[in-house]
């Protein structure tokens, strides 16, 4: 009888694990579709980035030190989120998970704030998305990434509340891994924005 119960609970555990692995894979497939979305936007930018309609080009508009700081902030936030997920998965340390998630959120908010201020500056100087094909594609590409980061932050806030309320259960740890995929993915997309929009624009 005892062995049967044990066996049963092991099955349940495995079932739960399988469910989580499936959910994680499903989310991975969603990220793949998001890669296609960003791939299309990168293609649009590649085609339109010279169509400045006589206006300023990437070289005249972007401040490189500002963009470097943005990049380093997002890279660091990816790292700090990684630490949170390690403490959740391997050490069962709720305090550390909460701490590193809060650091990540702080960095994420700093990144979004910097991006909004860059957009506001461009807009107030008259370089809005209506000014040229180059600026339309720029705002669409970078803005779509910014919206993703913002949604990721909202999600992280919700998850943080769940961790605080329920602790590190199998479910919350699974969700931490899922959000991790999303957050690291956004970091990778930004690396390409940094390279193709800002670095190559400055050449």
């Amino acid at each position: 009888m005892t062995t049967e119960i044990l066996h049963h609970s092991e099955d349940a555990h495995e079932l739960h694990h399988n469910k989580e692995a499936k959910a994680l894979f499903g989310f991975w497939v969603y990220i793949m579709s998001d890669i296609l979305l960003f791939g299309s936007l990168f293609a649009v930018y590649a085609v339109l980035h010279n169509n400045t309609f006589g206006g300023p080009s990437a070289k005249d508009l972007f401040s490189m030190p500002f963009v470097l700081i943005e990049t380093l902030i997002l890279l660091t936030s990816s790292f700090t989120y990684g630490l949170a997920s390690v403490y959740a998965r391997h050490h069962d340390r709720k305090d550390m998970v909460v701490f590193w998630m809060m650091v990540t959120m702080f960095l994420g908010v700093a990144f979004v704030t910097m991006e909004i201020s860059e957009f506001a500056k461009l807009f107030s100087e008259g370089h809005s998305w209506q000014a040229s094909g180059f600026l339309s594609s720029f705002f669409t590409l970078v803005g779509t990434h910014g919206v993703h980061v913002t949604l990721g932050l909202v999600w992280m806030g919700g998850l943080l509340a769940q961790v605080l309320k329920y602790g590190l259960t199998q479910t919350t740890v699974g969700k931490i891994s899922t959000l991790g995929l999303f957050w690291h993915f956004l970091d990778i997309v930004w690396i390409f924005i940094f390279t193709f929009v800002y670095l190559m624009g400055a050449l």
Partner: protein
Amino acid sequence: MTNDFKVIDEQFEAGRNAINSYVIGFVLSIALTLIPYVMVVNHMLSVQTAVVSVVGIALAQLLVQVIFFLHLSRKSKPEWNLIVFIYTILMVVFLVIGSIWIMNNLKYNMNMADASPLNSNEGYIPQ
């Protein structure tokens, strides 16, 4: 009891390895961000060399993040994650290179059309 300790030790060991992986990934990705930045801002290379090296470094950065942050290489089993990822990257490469190719071609042909009297709109009367 000893077994329990062993399990905890293994967990701790796995955790330490995971942290090491994130630290290595973080240091590498910072380096791969600063190197192209310094190269571009100080105009250390000719434009063509700079483009090639900046794109190469971005691809290295992609590899670093996929391995050390997403841990794609460690997932064993049927490797579906890796297969769909490679397929998606392939699609994006087709999409981006195809778009640039077609649109450049179009631009080239449109300029030709402007120059040729046969294809110009001069004297064209709309019905």
